[in-house]
């Protein structure tokens, strides 16, 4: 990030959501004169450092990316050598983006064509460029299409597989990458290996002495559907709070109430835990447990215990092992975190070279790291630059614009988009405990023009309603949103359960819900005058 010429933040509020990553970006900007481009419906924090802002419509990302691709091709700025040698599916892509002339798709993108052309040139002509995205891209019902549309741009210009040039999905949680790497996905084995790959399966079976199911499991959305269909009757949840974090909460709550048995393992008694039949108190992985986590740049780093966990709280690893032992699974014992890690290194080639000792000495290692003399891999896909290319070519996957699942209309005239704020984190389970000087509180961000038009005062309580639910929240003037666009976070579900509003239209492949696009209406709470109400009161009305 410190050695690039162009940074594009596409649907990524990095300065608030990844503050220390933003330090590195600023270093590039200040010391190398790198340029920053923000593609976001909002004027996000840090936009003052950007040389270009594309205020894309919520859900207009595929159309915009395709329009950028259109310009690159129209102006002959594509990297023909790279396309010919390292990619496939280019002709279909060319044909697909033909109809996305920026001037013709302004109604989809919301971005003036001139800016689209400017970005296309900047991206294509930059020596090195990093395209970053976060949930602005993936929390959509067409998340996978969005991601493909961006990858296509990198392939079109060869902005991948080189130091300082690439695609960077910024991870929202400290181990969301690690969780996937460890195989906590329905179609993956540890080491991000494909479940359907017989060789990978065999490696695991040999190590575990047990057969590995061949059938791909269910992702969360599919599990919810299975719960609705009565196919799933029991659930074991470790460290998640879905009855607050998921979209369309009224619906989710109903699903959980319908279960025969719910087991929740967490460091706190969350609202999900309150619904459980059995709760297993876990020690916090942070500061109380031993292990590793993997960050956005695939860097595996150590977690070390510093505190003795309270009461009877036990380590997650211990609990899982104990369950297995009590259930009579042969061969299970209690092991150290390092022993568990070493087992992973045996089944996962990309982690094989990462001993605890090396992680310690080197301050973490980036996978793939196949052997103990391997330095780790600061970037991926360098093979695309080999001539001739080794292995598979990188495919263009054509994506087409699809409108958001919900559109604004006369009844719900505002588009609500959601995200995270700097001082807070997800459902607030961790972050609400420290004293934030600006308070941990939720507001509805609205632009000055809309506030004036609706006659709202700063801090006035209002009611936000969608087709699924309503919440009451204080309205606040924001320079980040434009007329017609509103913003709320999900960080304070006890006071303002924003996800009562959001909808659970999900991506068919990834299963992520469209948290970023909800049609809502805003009304004043017709009570005594303009005095603002405490948020707590509003929450009680909601409860």
């Amino acid at each position, binding site marked *: 990030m410190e050695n690039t010429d162009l940074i594009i933040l596409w649907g990524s509020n990095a300065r608030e959501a990844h503050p220390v990553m933003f330090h590195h970006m600023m270093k590039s900007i200040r010391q190398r004169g790198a340029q920053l481009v923000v593609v976001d419906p909002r004027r996000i924090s840090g936009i003052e450092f950007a040389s270009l802002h594309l205020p894309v419509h919520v859900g207009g990302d595929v159309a915009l990316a395709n329009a950028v691709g259109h310009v690159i091709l129209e102006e002959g700025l594509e990297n023909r050598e790279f396309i010919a040698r390292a990619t496939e599916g280019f002709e279909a892509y060319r044909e697909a983006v033909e109809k996305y002339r920026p001037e013709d798709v302004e109604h989809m993108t919301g971005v003036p064509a001139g800016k689209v052309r400017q970005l296309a040139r900047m991206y294509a002509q930059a020596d090195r460029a990093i395209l970053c995205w976060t949930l602005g891209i993936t929390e959509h019902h067409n998340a996978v299409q969005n991601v493909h549309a961006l990858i296509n741009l990198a392939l079109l210009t060869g902005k991948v597989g080189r130091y300082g040039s690439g695609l960077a999905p910024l991870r929202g949680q*400290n181990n969301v990458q690690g969780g996937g790497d460890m195989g906590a996905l329905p179609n993956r084995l540890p080491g991000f290996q494909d479940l359907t790959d017989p060789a990978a399966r065999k490696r695991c079976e040999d190590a575990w002495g047990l057969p590995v199911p061949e059938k791909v499991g269910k992702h969360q959305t599919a599990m919810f559907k299975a719960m609705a269909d009565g196919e799933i009757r029991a659930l074991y949840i470790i460290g998640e709070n879905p009855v607050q974090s998921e979209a369309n909460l009224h619906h989710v709550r109903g699903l959980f109430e319908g279960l025969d048995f719910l087991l929740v393992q967490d460091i706190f008694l969350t609202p999900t835990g309150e619904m459980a039949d059995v709760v297993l108190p876990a020690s916090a992985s942070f*500061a109380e447990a031993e292990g590793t986590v993997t960050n956005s740049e695939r860097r595996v*780093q150590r977690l070390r215990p510093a505190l003795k966990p309270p009461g009877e709280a036990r380590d997650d690893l211990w609990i899982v092992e104990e369950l297995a032992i009590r259930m009579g699974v042969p061969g299970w014992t209690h092991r150290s975190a390092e022993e568990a890690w070493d087992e992973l290194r045996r089944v996962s080639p990309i982690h094989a070279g990462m001993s605890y000792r090396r992680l310690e000495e080197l301050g973490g290692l980036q996978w793939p790291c196949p052997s103990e003399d391997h330095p780790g891999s600061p970037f991926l896909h360098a093979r695309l630059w080999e001539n001739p290319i080794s292995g598979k070519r990188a495919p263009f996957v054509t994506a087409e614009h699809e409108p958001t699942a919900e559109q604004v209309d006369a009844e719900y005239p505002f588009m609500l988009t959601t995200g995270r704020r700097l001082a807070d984190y997800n459902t607030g389970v961790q972050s609400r405990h420290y004293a934030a000087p600006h308070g941990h509180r939720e507001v509805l961000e609205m632009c000055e023009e809309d506030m004036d038009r609706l006659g709202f005062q700063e801090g006035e309580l209002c009611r936000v309603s969608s087709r699924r639910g309503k919440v009451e929240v204080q309205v606040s003037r924001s320079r980040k949103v434009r007329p017609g666009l509103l913003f709320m976070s999900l960080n304070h579900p006890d006071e303002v359960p924003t996800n009562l509003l959001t909808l659970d239209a999900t991506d068919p492949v990834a299963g992520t819900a469209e948290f970023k696009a909800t049609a809502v209406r805003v009304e004043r709470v017709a009570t005594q005058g303009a005095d603002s109400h405490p948020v707590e009161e509003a929450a009680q009305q909601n409860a």
Partner: protein
Amino acid sequence: MADTFQVLIDGHEAIAHEGETILDVLRRAQVETPTLCTHEHLTPAKACRACVVELKGSRALVASCERKAEPGMEVRTDSERVQNARRGVFELLLSQNDVSTAPALAAQAESVGADPGRYRGQRYEKGFFDDNQLYVRDYDKCILCYRCVEACGPDVQNTFALTVSGRGFDAGIAAGFGESLPDSACVFCGNCVAVCPTGALMDRREHSLRAEGRWDEERYDVVQTTCSYCGVGCQLELHVDRASNEIVKVTSPMDHSVTHGFLCVKGRYGYSFVEAGGD
């Protein structure tokens, strides 16, 4: 190597690399040099003048933290002029500041032979600011090293909540438009606290424990781990009181490539959930 050359330090030859400061060369040559304002990850402020050296051909002494080494430079650190200037800098600071929480400053002052009673006069009375829950500012202890301003500004955080205000002896650090931190642009990352060399900026937890006489670094273990929040993977140093099983402070290692010692508000202050009871 093509980009190395020789310089003369106190009459001895030393190797310098292109782009290095004189201070870098001095440190490698193990020539003890006092420094206050310079910091490995910040632009040299060249403000404290503790690191001045005599440079042949230069009328005044030069700040070794800022001046780049050049081939053939002749540097003296052992001359009476240099010793006198360094001693003078510390004597002036000691006449101005409360250094009770700046043991490194006090030790350096002693090592250059500074007489704390040399100068009398008005002390630095810039006030104690207690305006938020996360850290306090005791500007009587501020030596105006500019580190906090640089960390808040272009060197790290780019928030620009802090500035140097006023002029001369009345100059001081101010937040926002001379207002409280919560009213300023401050985002409470605490990176200013992390770089403050005198304890003028201090986490509230540390400040309270000191006030109660309960701050005791002897009792604290420092455990390095990874932050529990977003996916950046910041490295944290948890300072843990063994006896009470409490985290008393969070810092970050200066030499780790992800953080370089810098964090955000959640990483530095958002740890208390591990100590919180269920609610």
